[in-house]
Every structure is written in C-alpha cells, then in structure tokens.
C-alpha cells in the first residue's frame, strides 16, 4: 500500500502535525504535573481528522476510525505502540517529525502517555470527548471531500453520458449509390450529411489546384513548375496517391505540421513576464516535435514522452527533450522564491495546457470551485496538482552518464580552484569594502546615520527600522573595484595589482572549463521545497524553511534515494504562509473522476528505470494515451481535420466539454477516432485517409446559391473551403517563390530582421539579435525565434497567437496593417525583386514567358489568355520604371490567390 501510494508517509506525517496543532492552547490549561490526558490530545487532533474533516481520510474521532486509519493505513496497532504509525510519527522514527512548528514538540511525558495508551490496548478513554459531528456538514458519501465550506460534487453515471465522455463507437458506413462518394468511409459519411441537408457537392478540383493545395497543406511550400507539370501529366492511376506519399515522406512536412502542435503547446524561446529571458535550449523541444511528425511517431507515444519522457522504462534523449512540454510555460524568474504562488501559477499553466492539449477540457476552471459546466471537481484539480507537484525544472544531459560525469568533474575541479582564488580576492577587498560602506553610509540622510551610529540597545523602535535601511546597501561592489570605485574607494596600486593578477588567473581558468555538453530543457521529479537558495534569502518558497517543520528531502534525489513527492494540500494556492496551507487535507494524485471507472485510483507505481521519480506523470500520460480514453483520439483527429479544412468537426478543438461545440458530424468524428487508434495512432495515415478522400479533393471555386442559402459557412463541406495561409507559411511561400528559401533544418533559432524602432522599445533581459535580410535569415519560419514579449511584426499582424497560452486555432482577421506589411515591408519588396530575377533566369526576357512563369511558380497554373494580356499591359505600362517585373511579382505576393490555399 505504501509503495503504491507514494507520498503517503509524508502526507500522513503532515496530518499528524496538524492533529497536534491544537495542543498549544489546551496544554496551557493545566495538567502539567500529571500524565497528560490522551483524549485531550486526540480531541484537538479532530480539527483536521474529525468527523467534519478527514485529511488523508484519517479520522481520530473514534477507536474504530483510528484502527481503520487513513490513506496510509491504520494509525494504531492496539497493544503495540512501536508498530503504530501515530507513535512512529510523534517520536520521529518516521520522518518528518511531528508535530511541526508552530506547535511545540511533544513533551516526553505526552509521548509516553500516548505510548502507554496504545500499549495498553488503546482503550477509548471517554466516548463523550469526541467532537460531535456538526449538523449538516457530513457528506452523504464518505468518498466526497468536505472542507471549509467546500462540498465536492458527486460525479454520477449521468455525467458520463456527455457525448465526449462516451467511447467513440465505430459507425455504420452508409451505402450510397454514387461511385465517387463510396470509395472512402469519410466520403460516405460526409455525403450522407450533405444529402441530409440537401446540399450538392462541388466537382473535383483540377490537378494543378490539387498539387498546390497538397504542397501548401503538407509542406507549407509551393511546388516547382516542374513538379506541377510532372503531376499534371502523370498517367499513373495512383498519381495523386503517390504525390501524397511523396509529400508525407518529405522532411519539410514536419516543419509545417509541428507548428500546429507548437501553438497548442504554447511554445516560445523566451520566458515572458518582466524580463523575458532567453530560453537557450527551448529549440530542442521544437526540433523534437518536428522530428516526431517526420518520423510519424505514434501519437500515444508522443503523449507519453511529452508528459513523462523521464519516467519511461527506457528514457531516450528524445523522450527527455520532450518533457519540455511541461516546462515551456511563461515564467517570472524574479523573486520566485519569495512568491510561492508563482509555482502554483506555473502548475496551473501545466494543468491547463495538458488537459486542453490532450483532452480538450478546461480543468483549470476548477481551481477555485467545482467546474461550473463540466463534471470536473475542485478535488480533481488538486488531484492533478498532486500529479505535477513533484516536478522540478531540469536540464537533462544529452550525453552519456560517463561523458557528463567527466565534464562535471573537470568543471568542478576548475571551479574549486576559482573559488579559492576568489577568496583571496575577497581578502584583498575586505578593508576597502568597509571603507566603501562608511562612505555610502555618509550619503544616507542624517536620521539614518544617527540611528545607525546609536548603539543597538539605545535605538528607539523607529531607529531600529532606520538602521536596518543600511542593510540594503549591496551590489555594485565589483563594479566599484573595477572602475576605481566611482570615487568611492581608492585601492592602493599594490593591492590593485595583486587583485588584478588573481582575476587574470580566474579568467584563464574560466576559459579552461570545458563547454557544457548539450542539455534538454525539461523536467523531472524532485522536491521544490528544498530548492537551493542563496544565503541571504533563507528558506525556499515564501521564505519557509521546511526543515524547521520536520520535513526532509532533496531537491534532486539521486538514484537509490527513496523518493516521495511533496504533499499537495487541498485548496492551497501558495498564497498563505505555510502553516495555513497545511490545514487543507492532503490530496492524492488521480485522473479525472469522470474519466475513471468508479472507484478507480490509477496512480501510481514508481517507474522502473531507476530514477527516483513518483511515476505520477507517467500514470497520467498512460491514462490519456489509452484506447479506453474517450477523448484522446477524437481530440487529435479533430485537430488534423481542422488544419486540413480550416474548420473542425468540433469547432472548439481545445474544448469538448459542455461549453464547446458539438460535432457537426459525430459519426465522421468517431470513425476517424476509431480508425486512428486501430492504425496504431498513426498520424500520417490520417493525412492519407483525409487527403485521398473526394471531400478533400473537391474544387473550391464552386458556388450554388441554394447551397449558400442552406449552409452559408460551408460547415458541411459542399465545397473545399479556401484557407488563408498562416503568418509563417506566407513568409515561407514568398521565399519559396523567390527561390531564396534557406533549407537549413533545425538547431538554434534565427532572428528575423526587426527595425530598431521596435526592438529598442522592448525592455528585456532576454535577447533579440540584430540581423539583416540575407540567407541566414531566410530559413523556414518555424525556426524563427519566438519571443513572448515581442512578436516578429509581420507574424503579429497575420494573427500569430500569443505564446503565453495554448492556442487551439488561429484566428483569421483581415486588417489594414496586413496590407501595409505586405505592400511596404522591406522583406516583401526585396523578395519580389528576387522572384523577378528568378523568373528572368528561368524564362528569359520575353514578357509573355515571364508572366507565364510567374503564374506557374506562384499559382501553380498557366494564366488565362485574358490574364496574360492584362498582365502584359501592366508590364508595358511600367516598363519605364525599369523594374516592371519586380513590381508585378510584388503585386502577386499581395493577391488573394497567392495567400490562400484554393
């Protein structure tokens, strides 16, 4: 039992501490001379372990409940104090020692009294002393949490009847008599809906439209004229299927489709908030996602790796990198230790993103109360906190243990030498520091100087506070020494030279430190309460010194250490000082009640990989990546469908709850979901099924007033919906047309050129490198640096989402600043020139040939006779400008036909 519910002992121990909280007041009432009354102690414990509240499901309100125990087993073994959990905790035999401050430790007499009482059979002293149950507070169902005005809502079978909580059922495929719509179940299901709504579908699109559509959809690139020609003329009956297979095998497929997931995963290369620090290794997660799509990683494995890549049986460098998903949320990274609520906000981000991404549920709505619409309780929320409460941010080495150890040893050796040199430097500086302090003191107002110079015992209360103001003098010392002290101090030349010599040695040593091997920006389990902290900032979160409360643990437990994650207290949001926090009952980790079988408690077995880890994230990942889970497959196939058609079967991809929309074609969604699982969560296979359907191959330039009247938004797909390219793909398509695209894959992000007028206005401690328009910045847009506090202006106007929150779908807005960007921005003007140069290279100087080539490259088709003639007129009219073709190319970049998938 203890093994199964890891963390059990810690939480039990905390509970014991709480039970004793009440002792303070009552112990003062007397009875000091006599053996303490056990019943008096236990009565006080009932604040948290009584009939109203049973933290850790433990009640000490009766002998029976003590025997029954809580989550961690029986509290007492009558006749044997040494074997009783209660006794072990109060003696400290099991850590942490009980009770915790502010409750004073039990006196030896009190401990002895409890021992005697248990050893003598734990007879219930006086039934009447048990706190009576306050009327109306007892929950009808003991499994439901009642605490401090909160009554957990019961999840019923009726709740499980919501469409998305029921497992998808393979639908019957309608048998139509139309050969065109009978080849694929997708088509049969779409056609059935069209017939039901009396809508007439469009004719098939022509081949040149199809190849442009497929290229932009799968790769985000334009097909070359040669590729278009070859496909249009391909006599093979499977020409189109072959094309899709070819595109799915392209490394550029991952570069395009990763972006979908990076939106969902709120990917960024910077931390956001005030300082927006650079996250120098975030790109490895981005590359992981690209690789996962390219290698067609089964989606269930993709889930497992991102949530628990470190807890798998055999973690790989890829799976460790994948845990960046958990860590990628915005971070303040300033005084985080002083603000314990930050960590809870970070976990809230993790919970929100995890459940939105994989389950399309807004679990974070239940942070302060049961979910208002969906059957998700506040306790569910805290069960999820308990899953993630062990997480600590960790840079996983991406080299072998041996190589890492070698690096560490080398670095430690040198750092040791540096430390001792530093001490020598400090020795030289010490007298000057004192002098510097005196000089700074002399700049303080007279009342502070007076207070400071008054002997401590003679200071008035106000003077004590004033004197303390001097303590805030720190920093700048290094600079003072290096700059000659800004006139604050004068260092003798002898000392100065000695100091400089030492610093030179330090510099030389620093250069010898071997470069750090690559690391993954990820997470692992540990205990945040014991995070290393600077000496001037005692305690970890909120200044709490957890050790003082009897907790022991390690921030980063090592292999072989016994590990239990820190306990999660119900309703604690990290805003209260610690003793207030722990009045809440401990909540054990678990999956959402509504998605669990009644009574099911899936969490968690420690992983078998030798890491000290709770295994809770893995348990969550397994519950999600399961064929039993009704949501997982549906949510993902809906995202894929959304990307292909610009609209979902469910139009709220991050919400399948009551506030989301219901599927427009439930049978289609369920067929896709079941097919997805049957085919081993194979994403590329879903692309194949969708893109080879007649539904996908319909023309977009089709219009029937009767259709438009019945279904103006084309919800039921009577024609292929045109889609505007996303910000990144517009840029990629332009580079693809001009021929400038630099295909350098992966690695560190590049910085697209941004005018100084923009960058200089963004306060940051992060970075933005100044660059210019050249091949180094003409890489694919997925590799552009994503800075939370400053988007690349062109992406910003084209609806790139805020990277602070998970984005379920891109908005498509049309605003004048987009026109200004496409028309006036240096990038587009320059690329238009290059596009024209390419066309001249490929088509020569004949204007008609040039125009045809422009159309072939940009639109994957030939111009009509009328188009050709009109364009010729434009070139003729602009001939005197000398750059007519570039002007024409610039116009083309601005056209709807270029910016849309048709």
């Amino acid at each position: 039992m203890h093994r199964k519910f890891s963390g059990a002992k810690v939480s039990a121990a905390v509970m014991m501490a709480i039970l004793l909280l009440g002792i303070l007041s009552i112990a003062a009432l007397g009875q000091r001379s006599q053996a303490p009354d056990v019943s008096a102690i236990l009565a006080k414990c009932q604040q948290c372990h009584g009939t109203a509240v049973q933290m850790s499901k433990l009640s000490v309100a009766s002998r029976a409940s003590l025997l029954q125990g809580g989550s961690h087993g029986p509290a007492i073994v009558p006749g044997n104090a040494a074997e009783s959990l209660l006794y072990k905790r109060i003696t400290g035999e099991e850590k942490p020692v009980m009770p915790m401050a502010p409750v004073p430790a039990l006196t030896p007499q009190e401990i002895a009294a409890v021992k005697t009482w248990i050893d003598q059979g734990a007879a219930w002293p006086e039934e009447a002393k048990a706190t009576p149950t306050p009327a109306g507070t007892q929950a009808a169902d003991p499994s439901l949490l009642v605490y401090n005005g909160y009554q957990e809502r019961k999840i019923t079978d009726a709740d499980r009847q919501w469409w998305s909580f029921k497992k998808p059922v393979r639908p019957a495929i309608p048998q139509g008599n139309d050969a065109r719509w009978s080849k694929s179940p997708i088509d049969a299901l779409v056609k059935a809906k069209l017939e039901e709504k009396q809508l007439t579908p469009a004719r098939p699109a022509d081949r040149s439209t199809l190849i442009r559509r497929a290229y932009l959809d799968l790769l985000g690139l334009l097909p070359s004229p040669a590729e278009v020609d070859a496909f249009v003329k391909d006599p093979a009956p499977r020409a189109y299927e072959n094309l899709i297979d070819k595109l799915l095998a392209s490394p550029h497929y991952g570069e395009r489709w990763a972006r979908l997931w990076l939106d969902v995963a709120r990917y960024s290369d910077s931390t956001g908030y005030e300082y927006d620090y650079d996250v120098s290794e975030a790109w490895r997660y981005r590359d992981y996602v690209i690789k996962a799509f390219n290698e067609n990683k089964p989606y269930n494995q993709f889930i497992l790796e991102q949530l628990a890549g470190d807890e798998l049986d055999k973690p790989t460098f890829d799976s460790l990198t994948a845990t960046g998903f958990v860590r990628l949320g915005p971070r303040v990274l300033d005084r985080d230790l002083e603000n314990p609520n930050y960590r809870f906000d970070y976990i809230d981000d993790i919970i929100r993103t995890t459940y939105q991404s994989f389950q399309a549920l807004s679990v974070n709505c239940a942070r302060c109360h049961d979910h208002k619409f969906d059957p998700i309780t506040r306790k569910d929320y805290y069960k999820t906190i308990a899953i993630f409460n062990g997480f600590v941010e960790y840079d996983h080495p991406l080299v072998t243990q041996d190589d890492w150890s070698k690096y560490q040893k080398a670095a430690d050796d040198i750092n040791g030498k540096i430390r001792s040199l530093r001490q020598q430097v400090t020795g030289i500086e010490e007298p000057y520091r004192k002098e510097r302090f005196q000089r700074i003191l002399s700049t303080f107002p007279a009342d502070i100087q007076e207070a400071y110079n008054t002997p401590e015992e003679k200071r008035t209360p106000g003077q004590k506070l004033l004197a303390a103001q001097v303590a805030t003098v720190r920093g700048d010392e290094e600079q003072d020494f290096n700059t000659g002290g800004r006139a604050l101090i004068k260092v003798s030349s002898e000392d100065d030279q000695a100091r400089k010599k030492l610093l030179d040695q330090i510099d030389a040593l620093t250069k010898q430190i071997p470069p750090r091997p690559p690391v993954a920006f990820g997470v692992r389990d540990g205990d945040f309460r014991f995070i290393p902290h600077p000496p001037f900032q005692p305690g970890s979160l909120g200044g709490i010194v957890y050790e003082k409360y009897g907790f022991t643990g390690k921030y980063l437990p090592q292999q072989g250490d016994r590990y239990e994650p820190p306990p999660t207290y119900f309703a604690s949001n990290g805003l209260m000082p610690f003793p207030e926090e722990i009045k809440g009952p401990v909540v054990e980790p678990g999956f959402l009640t509504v998605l669990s079988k009644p009574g099911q408690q899936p969490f968690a077995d420690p992983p078998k990989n030798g890491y000290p880890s709770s295994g809770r994230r893995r348990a969550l990942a397994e519950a999600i990546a399961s064929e039993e889970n009704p949501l997982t497959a549906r949510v993902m196939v809906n995202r894929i469908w959304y990307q292909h058609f610009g609209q979902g079967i469910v139009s709220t991809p991050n919400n399948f709850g009551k506030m989301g929309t219901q599927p427009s074609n439930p049978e289609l969604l369920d067929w896709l979901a079941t097919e997805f699982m049957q085919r081993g969560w194979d994403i590329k296979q879903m692309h194949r099924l969708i893109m080879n359907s007649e539904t996908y191959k319909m023309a977009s330039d089709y219009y029937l007033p009767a259709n438009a009247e019945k279904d103006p938004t084309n919800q039921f797909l009577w024609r292929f919906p045109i889609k505007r390219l996303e910000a990144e793909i517009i840029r990629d398509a332009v580079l693809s047309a001009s021929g400038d695209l630099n295909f350098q894959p992966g690695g560190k992000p590049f910085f697209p050129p941004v005018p100084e007028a923009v960058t200089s206005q963004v306060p940051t401690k992060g970075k933005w490198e100044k660059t210019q328009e050249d091949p180094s910045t003409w890489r694919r847009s997925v590799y552009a640096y994503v800075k939370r506090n400053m988007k690349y202006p062109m992406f910003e106007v084209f609806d790139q989402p805020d990277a602070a929150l998970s984005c379920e779908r891109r908005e498509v807005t049309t605003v004048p600043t987009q026109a200004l960007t496409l028309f006036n921005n240096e990038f587009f003007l320059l690329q238009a020139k290059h596009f024209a140069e390419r066309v001249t290279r490929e088509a020569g100087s004949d204007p008609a040939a040039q125009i045809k080539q422009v159309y072939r490259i940009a639109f994957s088709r030939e111009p009509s006779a009328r188009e050709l003639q009109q364009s010729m007129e434009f070139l003729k009219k602009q001939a005197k400008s000398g750059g007519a073709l570039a002007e024409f190319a610039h116009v083309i970049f601005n056209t709807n036909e270029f910016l849309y998938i048709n």
Partner: protein
Amino acid sequence: MKHEPECNCNGKSRRRFISRRDLLFQAGGGISGIALAYLLGTDGLLGAPAAGPQACVGSAGVTDSPFLPKAPHFKARAKSVISLFMCGGVSHVDTFDYKPALTKYHGKPMEGKGEVLVRQGYPGPLMKSPYQFKQFGQSGKWVSELFPNISGIVDELAFIHSAQGRSADHTLSHYEWNTGSIIAGYPSMGAWLTYGLGSENQSLPAFVVIHDPRGGPFTGSAQWSSGFLPAAYQGTVFRSAGDPILDLHPSAGSLSPEQQRAELDELSRINQNYVEKHPGISELTARISSYELAFRMQGCAPEAINLDDESDETKRLYGLDNKVSEPFGRQCLMARRLVERGVRAVQLWNGAVVNQNVDTWDAHNSIVDNHGRHAPEVDKPIAGLITDLKRRGLLDETLVVWHSEFGRMPLSQKGIGRDHNPGALTVFMAGAGVKGGQSIGASDEFGYKAAEQIVTAHDLHASILYLMGIDHKRLTYYYNGRNMRLTDVAGELIPQIVA
C-alpha cells in the same frame, strides 16, 4: 466636423492612395467592401465638394472590418477612453492622498497593521511626505506641490483613493490594471473595448498606444495585447518619430507613389477575378477593402499626430514649450487629436524601463529625485489635455483615466525612498460626465491599505466599460471552455463614478 480635411484631399498626399473611383470602376459591380455612396462622396464625383465627408474620419463606406462600430449595450457616456498610465508606481501619499498622520508619526514604526512585508525587504519607519499639501478648487481637494497644474483642475477630477491591487510586482500589477489578470496572456482593456465597440474611425487603428519616447513599459506589448481575442484587437503602437506605424510607407526609394498606385490597380484587378471565382466569401472582399483602408491610413495616421497646425497657445497649454514636459505633452496632444478622430482607445505611457529607477516612477531610492523628475513631465500636459478636451466640447464624450500599477509605502526606504505598495493606490478620472471634485473611498490613516470602499481592477474596469456603454458581464469572448470577461467573475460598478 470641426477640423479641416488635411488628409487625402490635398494634392500632396493624394497620390499615395488608391483611387476609389478606379477601384470602383475596375471592380465592376462585384465589390462589396466599399459602398458606392462613400466612393462617390469622397472622390468628388457627381459634383460633391472635394472636401466632402472627411476621408480620415468615420466608417463610411466600409462594410466588412473587425472594427466597424458596434452598438453598445446601453447609451454610452463616452465614445473614447484615454488611459494615462504612470509606469513604475506613483506614490499616492506624496501626490493626491494627503496623510497628515505621516507627519505626526514620522520616524516611528507603523503599528497595528500586522506583519508588514515590503518588496525589497527591511521595512522602514513611517515617513512624512517631503512635499507640502494645500487645498484647491471648490472641492477643497488636498494636492501636493508636485502638481501645480493638475491642482488647478481638481474640480474636474474624481479621485479614487481606495484602489487596491494583488501583486507587489511591477509586471504582474501592470497586467492586473490593464487586463484584470495578474497572469500573462489575457486581453487588455483597450482590446476588449475595440472588440466590443469597434471604432468610429476606419482609417486609423482603433486602439492606439503611445509610449514614453525613452522606451516601453514593463513587458512592452504584452500590456496592450489582444490575449485570446482575435489578434486584430491588440493595440497599435504609434511611434513618436518617423512614420507612426510600422511599414506605413515603403522604405525610401523602393517604390515611388506612381509605382505604388499602378501596383494597387493591378492588384485590385487580379483580386477581383479571384473574388468572382469564389463568391460568397466575405473575407476576400474584406481583403480588397483592407488595401483601401491601408492606404487611407497612410495619409491619415501621420496627419492624426501631426501637431504642426496646432496653435502656439494650444502647444503651450500642453507644455510643449518646455523641454521637461514636451514629450508627454506631445503624447497628450496626439491623444486629443486621435479621440477627436474617433479612435476608440488611446493609452499613453510615462515611464520607460530602460533605466528603471530613473525613467519610471519607481522611487525606491528617493521620492524627491524620482517624483520630482516625473511629476513635472506630466503635470502640465495632463492638465492641458483635460482643459483642451473640455473647451472643445470633447470631455463629455471622452473618459480620461490616470493610473499606475501600485501606490507606494508610507514607510521609508533608505530614508528618502518608498517601496511598492499594492495595498492602496490613487486613480483619477475625468470626463464622460463623471462628477468632478469628488474623492471616492479612502485608504487608512497612513495610506498603507485601502480602507473604505475598496476598488479592485475589476471594479474599475467594470465602471469604465459602463461609461463606454458596455455591461461588463455581457461583453464576453469564448475561450478555454467559457465565455471570458475582462472582469473575470467579479467587478462591481463604482456607484459614484457611474452615478
């Protein structure tokens, strides 16, 4: 309309624009983005005077844009809002929240307030203000000598002395007063307003931000983000030098006005063919009209903030004749011109984080050095703005809100400075029919915590939306499974403000 048609009706800038007449003719009958009457009217066809309806004002002719004016929930008191955000944290007890008790107990520990936590540690004793306070106006409002000009208009102002925030951190507090949330990623009030109301002007951005010429505030654009609202609603930064909007014009020499014009005609032709092939998709016609709007904006945006034709008297009113007050004075005068042209929301920032303790109001090191530097920067411009709006009859339809991310501690820091204090801050409002000369709520005797009628960011936002004709509970956007609001699930109207 009072002002002259400076924008695209004179020959000089005329050529930058696509000709509406050409567009109309080339578009045939199919173009739905631009209304015929507008095209004819503004282009001087059919004998209409060239000056006609102002090309830089209003929404005439635009039928498809996220910024089309939308009806408010009820009759609005104001059409526009100007937020004057003092970045860094203004000390309320040294400006508008007079606390004689600080003089009385100067140098003594603050007692009876429980454990006092200060941002940078080491709470000092109570510290009196280094400034003299006097009473002003009919209302007898106490104002410190830091604001000699604002003290002259106190009877126009409604002070809230009991505002209270949740965080002692600059960034989080910025988020709170701008977005209602202390967590990153939520839409700003300006974004909500333009989402809810659109704009009275389609030739200018609906939500304009002008920050301190020295640099941006904490986190920069995150403070005027559209969050989870469509990205179109984010604030547009107007730069004070060069073109106000990025890419407003092609970079020098790259495209002559003639070339631009020829390209636009060609573009319009090609796009029109495409629209004809794909009927019934409003997005496509909206794209065509967005070019029209863009090139109206080319003339209108520089015109809107061009102060050349303001009279010397007006410039002096805003303090443009003084080097210290000139930068913020320019921001304020631009703001007046923007709301005059129907821009829905304007946010002006004083304070740049580049050199935080100096260039923002973050007076840890010295109240006198810091506030003594910033107050003269904004005093005359703010008084000038409110006076000017009033005499032009614009104050009735414009709401001006002066705020900061938090107040400062009544305690001394290093003897002469003050640390952050989210417990109490002062906000003032003017215009929109809000009764001037009143003081709402109160902080405690030292100004440590809001004591009477605590006003949260949600309350302030709810009240601002109310004045703009919006019921804050009904302005919602679906995100993450629920209909989100600027005011989350809270927000009470401040009765004295909405009275």
